[in-house]
């Protein structure tokens, strides 16, 4: 792991006392860095009218030429959503979202049917190029298949033929609805039912696009799969839906990246991700989330309300979440595991970094249902500026979870004296023959540590970078190799100015 993943602005460190960082300007110097993905692609888009009602949902479904069961699924979800209340239990404060002031479908205008990448609007290809996700045959990443989602639609998916040779299906969920309807009908909403929570219900009603992955029995996916989500429009929400199914004894590593332009309004992002692992299957799901976080005064930024859940249905199945959360004005996200299969394994590795006025309430739920199930939680929260960073996690041992075990470790690092960190661990056990271990710590980068590194010739910013990197090491080690560098870069950009 490279050390210098953070380059931060130089602060006047003679007077710099991180332990009692009172000088506000200093904190500001330290925590400011322009967002590099903030550009808008000037492209003709097809948008539907603002607002949310049954007609809008029917229109979305019609545009996507969906079968009736899916429209029914949407309408049912909408009915439930209307009866639900926005959750207020998280450690988050934000101005009320006007759900009628959002455009629920926005897509770049393209030719009706695109048979090859050559027909994709060059502006779109250029956009993803600029984001470091080249899609064209000549330039595409060599060992990762990419599904690129732009606002409400999937633009392109690379390596499809190669994957198909192994029986792996990797396409947009819209295509899956058309071509693999049986799988969609069988699994959609089985992990995250529409009634699960307010934002899941909303997503179920209006989801536009997202990725679909199917790994057949006994297949180890020959390359990492990755989706890149790009929000381009300022006034439309993004509601993607991802479904990954790993059949018996199969395995896949899936990566997800997200960016958005800078707008002074807030954009709503409410995604649902469902993972299903059958006997002896394993799914590794890694996220680097870098949605626009808003400016220093907290104006603009993405409201990120996401429901991610994996179901370890099969015996000895394994689902592992790793996330690097650096963006968004608001993050509300708890990638979870339902551990049904005997000896199934759930993992959650998280780095959440907040600065300025960002707020993150993130964590996981490990629901142990089957016997001898095992879960591991490692959460690293870094709060700088005036941000609030909370870990919220539930570990539940059901009555049949004999011999189940959990280990949780939640560490917080505070930078400056205006940031706050919270840990809310919930533990429920109905099974006396199970083990739950929880460790938590909070630390600050001490002046003595900084001075020690500096007195060895290491620049102030690099010293902070080394310590933050060291703090996150347990989690970074879990990221796939290809993604680790990407995560490094994204976190670097975010921390550029965010810490030191």
């Amino acid at each position, binding site marked *: 792991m490279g050390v210098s993943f953070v380059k931060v602005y130089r602060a006047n460190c003679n007077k710099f006392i991180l332990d009692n960082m009172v000088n506000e300007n200093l904190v500001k110097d330290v925590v400011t860095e322009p967002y590099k993905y903030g550009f808008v692609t000037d492209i003709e888009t097809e948008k539907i009218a603002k607002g949310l009602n049954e007609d809008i949902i029917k229109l979305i479904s019609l545009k996507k030429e969906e079968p009736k069961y899916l429209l029914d699924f949407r309408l049912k979800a909408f009915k439930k959503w209307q009866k639900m209340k926005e959750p207020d239990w998280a450690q988050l404060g934000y101005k009320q979202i006007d759900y009628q002031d959002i455009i629920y479908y926005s897509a770049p205008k393209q030719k009706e049917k695109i048979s090859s990448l050559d027909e994709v609007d060059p502006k779109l290809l250029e956009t993803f190029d600029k984001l470091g996700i080249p899609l064209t045959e000549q330039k595409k990443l060599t060992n990762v298949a990419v599904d690129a989602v732009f606002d409400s639609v999937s633009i392109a998916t690379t390596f499809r033929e190669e994957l198909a040779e192994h029986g792996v299906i990797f396409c947009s969920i819209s295509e899956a609805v058309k071509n693999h309807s049986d799988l969609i009908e069988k699994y959609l909403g089985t992990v995250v039912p529409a009634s699960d929570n307010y934002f899941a219900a909303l997503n179920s009603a209006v989801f536009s696009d997202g990725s679909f992955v199917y790994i057949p029995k006994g297949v180890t996916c020959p390359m990492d799969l990755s989706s890149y989500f790009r929000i381009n429009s300022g006034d439309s929400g993004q509601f993607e839906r991802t479904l990954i199914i790993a059949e018996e004894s199969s395995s896949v590593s899936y990566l997800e990246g997200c960016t958005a332009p800078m707008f002074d309004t807030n954009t709503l992002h409410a995604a649902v991700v469902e993972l299903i692992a059958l006997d002896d299957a394993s799914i590794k799901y890694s996220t680097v989330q870098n949605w626009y976080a808003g400016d220093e005064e907290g104006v603009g930024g993405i409201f990120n309300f996401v429901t991610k859940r994996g179901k370890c249905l099969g015996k000895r199945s394994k689902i592992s979440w790793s996330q690097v959360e650096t963006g968004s004005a608001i993050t509300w996200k708890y990638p979870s595991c339902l551990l049904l299969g005997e000896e199934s394994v759930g993992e959650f590795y998280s780095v959440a970094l907040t600065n300025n006025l960002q707020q993150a309430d993130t964590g996981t739920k490990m629901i142990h249902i089957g016997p001898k199930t095992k879960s591991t939680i490692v959460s690293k929260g870094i709060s700088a500026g005036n941000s609030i960073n909370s870990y919220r996690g539930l570990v539940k041992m059901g009555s049949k979870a004999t011999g189940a075990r959990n280990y949780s470790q939640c560490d917080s690092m505070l930078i400056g004296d205006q940031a706050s960190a919270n840990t809310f661990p919930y533990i429920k056990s109905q099974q006396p023959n199970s083990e739950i271990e929880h460790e938590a710590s909070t630390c600050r980068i001490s002046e003595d540590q900084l001075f020690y*590194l500096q007195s060895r010739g290491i*620049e102030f910013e690099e010293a902070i970078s080394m310590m933050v990197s060291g703090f996150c*090491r347990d989690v970074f080690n879990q990221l796939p190799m290809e993604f680790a560098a990407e995560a490094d870069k994204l976190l670097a950009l975010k921390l550029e100015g965010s810490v030191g």
Partner: protein
Amino acid sequence: MQSKMKESDPILEVQNLFASTDNLPILKGVSMTVYPGEIHAIMGRNGCGKSTLSKIIAGHPSYNITKGNIKFSGENINSLEPEDRAQSGIFLGFQYPIEIPGVSNLEFLRVSTNARRKYLNKEELDTFDFEELVKEKLELVKMDHAFLSRSVNQGFSGGEKKRNEILQMALLQPKIAILDETDSGLDIDALRIVASGIKKISNAQTGIILITHYQRLLDEIEPDYVHVMADGQIIKTGGSDLALELEEKGYEWTDNLIKET
């Protein structure tokens, strides 16, 4: 007292230095000059300002210089950042080396060494070349290779931490090394290892300041000058025999010296 030919320019000049922390005066007019090849020892009771002097020379941000100058190679470095001082060749061996969880010792040493090399316009070393270099230096302090993969100083015994400091000194090849109670907490074998390491690293171009309470380090490394500090000042300077005299008469003797002045 030995008298050396002062043909070359001094490495370090501390000129009538006054310094305070939280408005509390700690140094009250310290002066000393170190020429290349010289070994100076500073002795004195706890709280006399020895450690503060070393930290101020290294640029610790908690202390303010209220009067006087520190010159390094003729340049005033009063307001230079600690990393710039380190890169240009000032080394502080810490009395209590700091633990840095999660940061691998090897990476730390490499980044640090490269920062110094960059300053010296030497080629920066990649991981492989650095491993070669560090292997050779590990010998000097008889450290095991396993130390490199651990977090910086974390879980190191007192002696291991001190040896890690000398390893850093060996890698950075400073022009002046200030070693703050490097001998404290060492058993006699570790002390010999550390002392021989220091001697091997230093040469006719290097200046060394040993801050210590005990004669036993000075038995291993004979100083050219011994300074006795009390209440933020150097109250007496002499040759290596001064340390012996101090050992014999104890600090009460220096208390009386203060009263006399």
